[in-house]
């Protein structure tokens, strides 16, 4: 008879007890993995608005309403960003890259269109736009006369296509191509895209902009920051401090704050909740393992009586528990995978803050619904899965070893003597 034969017989014979341990381990792993997966998906959903922008932080400054809403204006209430502030932000520790932009609304009596001028550098710039070209040619800032890219939806709504002309402030631009902006994930969404210098030129000549700001051909009203994630919080607060009360700094943190009431589980809450549930499940597992071993006190004494040493008995118990909890853990992972597949997505309803929404919500004729469903798929968290499995097996085996040491006494006669 081998040890494995004994092990197999024990697990089969004590089916009820084995099932309790299996279920306990499965529960630990299932809880930890599923809750973490939901929590991760919620966090991913919160990042979606900024993913479309393609930056970690978007910096704007709150400004004044133009006297007249006509022609090219800054989106209300965006103001010009002071050049010296832009330079200081660029040099903040943790800032990897910055991309300046000019965001404008073109308000004509019969139409509204948004315009974004971006430079050819950075992930939030022209390279990002060109990566999702639907038709036509990429936008090249060196091409003269200057060309424009248009959003695919805007193009189809207005029956525009590559090669057509579009007019802005009395100036005509050839459309080089159309782009699938939402898919580009690299730019704030607008209807029309121009090279930064051209947008700066237009803004610096727009009467209702220069009426409010001393905007020159080198200024911007929007700054995209790519930031080392470890410094996200400190950069955000530094920028807010630098620009004062009027700063509009959009980041994962600000969106998270905005969504706090809507959020199903905040990151901290989910960590605490997951930890508490996992601890309770681990305690249940430890208890069921210890109980299973204490039920066998007489058998363990018999093994001692026939010459098994304490290390041999404990190694047998550990092996049994390791196999049982290992299989239970795998079952837990399977159930988690099934559960995650069944739930599918996390959905959060959120009203986009106007500063990252492309349309002027205050216009009475605008029916733009700024409510956005943030949908993120729930995915199996591989690291957590491995950790949960390992932790569950470790807990079960450690408990088996401790219970074994407690139960396997040097002199086991009391378990063997007849009452």
């Amino acid at each position, binding site marked *: 008879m081998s040890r494995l034969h004994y092990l197999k017989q024990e697990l089969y014979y004590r089916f009820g007890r084995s099932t309790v341990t299996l279920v306990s381990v499965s529960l630990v792993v299932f809880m930890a993995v599923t809750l973490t997966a939901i929590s991760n998906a919620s966090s991913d959903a919160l990042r979606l608005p900024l993913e479309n922008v393609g930056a970690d932080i978007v910096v704007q400054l709150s400004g004044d309403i133009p006297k007249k809403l006509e022609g090219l204006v800054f989106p209300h209430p965006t103001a010009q960003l002071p050049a010296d502030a832009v330079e200081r932000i660029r040099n903040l520790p943790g800032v990897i890259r910055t991309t300046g932009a000019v965001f404008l609304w073109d308000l004509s009596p019969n139409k509204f269109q948004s315009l974004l001028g971006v430079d050819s550098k950075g992930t939030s710039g022209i390279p990002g736009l060109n990566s999702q070209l639907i038709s036509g040619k990429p936008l090249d800032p060196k091409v003269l006369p200057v060309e424009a890219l248009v959003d695919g939806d805007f193009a189809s709504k207005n029956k525009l296509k590559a090669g057509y002309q579009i007019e802005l402030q009395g100036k005509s631009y050839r459309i080089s191509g159309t782009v699938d902006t939402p898919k580009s994930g690299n730019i704030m969404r607008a209807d029309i895209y121009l090279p930064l210098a051209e947008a700066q030129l237009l803004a610096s000549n727009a009467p209702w902009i220069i009426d409010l700001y001393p905007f020159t051909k080198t200024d911007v009203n929007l700054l995209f920051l790519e930031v080392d994630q470890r410094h996200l919080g400190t950069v955000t607060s530094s920028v807010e401090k630098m620009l004062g009360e009027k700063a509009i700094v959009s980041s994962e943190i600000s969106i998270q704050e905005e969504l706090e009431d809507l959020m199903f589980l905040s990151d901290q809450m989910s960590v605490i909740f997951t930890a508490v549930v996992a601890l309770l499940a681990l305690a249940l597992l430890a208890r069921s393992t210890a109980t299973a071993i204490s039920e066998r006190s007489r058998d363990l004494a018999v*093994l001692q009586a026939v010459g098994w040493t304490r290390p041999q008995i404990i190694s047998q118990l550990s092996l049994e528990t390791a196999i049982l909890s290992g299989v239970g853990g795998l079952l837990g992972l399977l159930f988690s995978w099934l559960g995650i597949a069944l739930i599918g997505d996390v959905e959060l309803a959120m009203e986009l803050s106007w500063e990252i929404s492309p349309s002027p919500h205050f216009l009475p004729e605008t029916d733009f619904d700024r409510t956005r469903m943030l949908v993120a798929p729930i995915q199996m968290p591989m690291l957590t899965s491995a950790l949960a499995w390992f932790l569950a097996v470790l807990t079960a085996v450690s408990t088996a070893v401790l219970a074994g040491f407690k139960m396997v006494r040097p*002199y086991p006669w009391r378990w063997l003597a007849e009452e």
Partner: protein
Amino acid sequence: MSNAVQVTNLSKQFNTVSVLRDLSFTIPAGKMSAIVGRSGSGKSTLLSLLSGLDSPSSGSVSIDGVELAGLSESELAKVRRDRIGIVFQGFHLIPSLDALANVLLPVAFEEKTKQAGHIDLAKRLLEEVELGHRLNHRPAQLSGGEQQRVAIARSLIHRPRVLLADEPTGNLDESTGKTVLSLLRKISQEYGTTLVVVTHDTEIAQQAEQRLHLSNGEISDETN
């Protein structure tokens, strides 16, 4: 003739109660000895000390020339594995294992090369206790007498020098008890094993070559 068991000034106390008092005796090798006494006389306690499953308050026990006092837990286990076989009144078989696996339990950790020989011996022992047809039955599927016969086979699988039996017929009816005892005698003689039986049954004691009468924790009489 050499002694299989040597007990010197052995005492055992539980708290303030003295169960065994200053016992000294020897048991000759290859013979059957009976430790006789009424319930509560300390017979089973004496057997627990002889098997190293409990520790004495004072005195010493030597089994097959090995002094138990001072041995570590693992060394005591090795003495039991190599030199002592134990048969309990309550059989104490492992419920999850069939008869054959129960008999093989003491040698489960031995080298694989020896396993085939052990399996042959286990089957032969089960044949000898007339359970050759019950190899794959679990304890729950066996009668009390059959379970005790499996326990006897188990106690002999490693060819011990000393076989300790604690009221081996205590849980059996008279007829089955007689069969079990005669099997014990027959097999221990065949394997040259010293048989020490703890019993309150004078009829069983009569069959022993040596009888130690225990009363109030002391040997009141020794008959050879």
